[in-house]
């Protein structure tokens, strides 16, 4: 390899240093610091070293377990629906000639809008008040008013109730998301479908037209060309979007913090919200750090597994 002059090296590091300093101090160092904090009793300031006590406590804390469960519901409720909807929309958009730009801007608006503002709007749309838009829509189809964001019972349990079952086993509420979480999931889908659609549209435009022409000559149906050409060729984009979405589930905070309600809190609080409560309300930095470190390890493992399992199936061409 050619030797790079010292001057060039110095310039490179000089250019890098401000950004690197910010990222190291506020992005990397906190992970090591979190580990250190988590091993101490630590409220406003540092107290005694207590070893892994916080981790022992965390593993038997129903809050942590519940946070993981809600995060899992949230991921399963949002990601597949977003992928299917946005793929469909992108295909529809790709095939039209007029109004493409208009729809693209329109679908993108929810993603651009400040989360706080749109979450405040959804809080009123999905309020238990009979005049809320969600209830008006629901009643229009002949159903009863619902408590939406304030409802801690699972959507399945409510369905059973509507069908006339007055009692149901307790696990129905344990193993299904609450109606409050379903409302949060609907909000999330509303925000991200447009973003995914725009990115998928770019992926579709990159597919050479000839593939489709050849398939048509061979007598392939539109559905066949979709499965054999479109899907494999946009799979890298879908994989990218799924990865971003999974990391997003673990990052989700702002809208859930706005949309949480007193009655249904336990059923909508994802891990980030659980951690924030420990910092902001309980001022327990030590325990919060332990929870944060567990979250970090979970994401690390998940990303590695995802890259191993899904990454291999993605078709990148040759």
């Amino acid at each position, binding site marked *: 390899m050619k030797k790079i002059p010292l001057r060039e090296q110095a310039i490179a590091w000089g*250019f*890098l240093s401000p950004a690197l300093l910010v990222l190291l101090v506020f992005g990397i160092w906190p992970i090591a610091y979190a580990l250190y904090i988590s091993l101490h009793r630590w409220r406003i300031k540092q107290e005694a070293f207590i070893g892994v006590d916080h981790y022992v406590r965390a593993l038997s804390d129903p809050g942590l377990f519940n946070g993981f469960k809600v995060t899992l519901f949230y991921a399963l409720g949002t990601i597949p629906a977003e992928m299917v909807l946005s793929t469909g929309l992108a295909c529809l958009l790709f095939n039209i000639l007029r109004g493409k730009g208009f729809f693209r801007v329109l679908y993108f608006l929810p993603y651009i809008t400040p989360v706080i503002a749109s979450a405040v709007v959804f809080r009123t749309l999905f309020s238990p008040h009979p005049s809320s838009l969600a209830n008006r829509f629901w009643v229009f189809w002949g159903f009863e008013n619902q408590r939406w964001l304030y409802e801690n019972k699972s959507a399945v349990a409510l369905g059973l109730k509507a069908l006339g079952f007055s009692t149901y086993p307790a696990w129905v509420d344990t193993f299904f998301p609450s109606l409050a979480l379903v409302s949060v999931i609907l909000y999330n889908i509303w925000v991200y479908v447009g973003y995914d659609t725009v990115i998928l549209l770019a992926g579709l435009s990159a597919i050479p037209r000839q593939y489709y022409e050849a398939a048509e000559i061979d007598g392939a149906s539109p559905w066949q060309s979709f499965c054999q050409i479109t899907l494999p060729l946009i799979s890298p984009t879908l994989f990218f979007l799924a990865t971003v979405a999974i990391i997003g589930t673990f990052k989700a905070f702002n809208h859930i913090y706005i949309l949480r309600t007193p009655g249904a809190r336990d059923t909508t609080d994802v891990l980030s919200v659980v951690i924030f409560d420990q910092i*902001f309300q309980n001022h327990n930095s030590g325990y919060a750090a332990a929870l944060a*470190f567990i979250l970090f390890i979970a994401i690390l493992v998940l990303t590695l597994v995802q890259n191993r399992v899904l990454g291999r199936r993605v078709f990148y061409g040759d």
Partner: protein
Amino acid sequence: MATERQSSRGKRWLTYGGLGLCGVAAGLPFVWMLLASFMTEGETLRRVLLPEQVQWANYVLAWKEADFGLYFKNSLIIAVMQVGGTLLFSLMAAYPLARIPFRGREVVFVVILGTMMVPEMVTTGPNFLLINWLNRHSPIPWLNNWPALTIPFMASAFAIFLLRQFLRGIPGELWEAARMDGAGHLRFLLQIALPLCRAPLLTVGMFTFIGSWNSLAWPMLVTNTPEWRPISVGLQQFVSEAGAEVHLQMAGAVVSTLPVLLVYFLIQKEFTEGISLSGLKA
């Protein structure tokens, strides 16, 4: 032939019908937000869809009494500082990663990308303690002041990544030619690379702007007086305290949405181009 034409027309109706339905779903909350912001409190509670008289007073109330004017100004200052810092530092960092093959480049790049994976909530607690320490030991206060709200966000891995991808696409001959003319790295970056990076810079700027405007948890921790409180925290507190005053909540939501939408419409073309770039395999 006739049936074929008919089926293609039917298909077009279906296509536009599906797109239109989703468009309504995407746009409806905006329409409602705008309408409700012009209603009286009574109208928001009754089953009214349109306000009888447009209540501009809601905006005056929200702006003055709920202090949205101050919060709005704070958010704007914070956003401008974050966007300026991020663009400058990220472009500076992206340049050597793309064009100077210095020792340790791969490692630095992987470390930078690694920070993208770390959720905000993992770093929030330790960073809060760090800011408390800085607050005590630095000449200017960090809490309830701009440094805590802006400095930790002045570089972003995503920005560096996107700009690096773009800078790598600039042909090497341009650099050779510039060097022949006696230009150094700084001049090449400012005079040749910078004007070419318009779309990615606008994209990164827009993302930083949105991120800054949205941030809630961090400003809640580092501001406990209204002096530097951003609009996100103001709106959150207003919602949790004001209870049912839906008309004022919606006026606040409209006010906080406007700047972002305005910037988006101004740079819509470049932004769409930029984010489409981010999804394609590098």
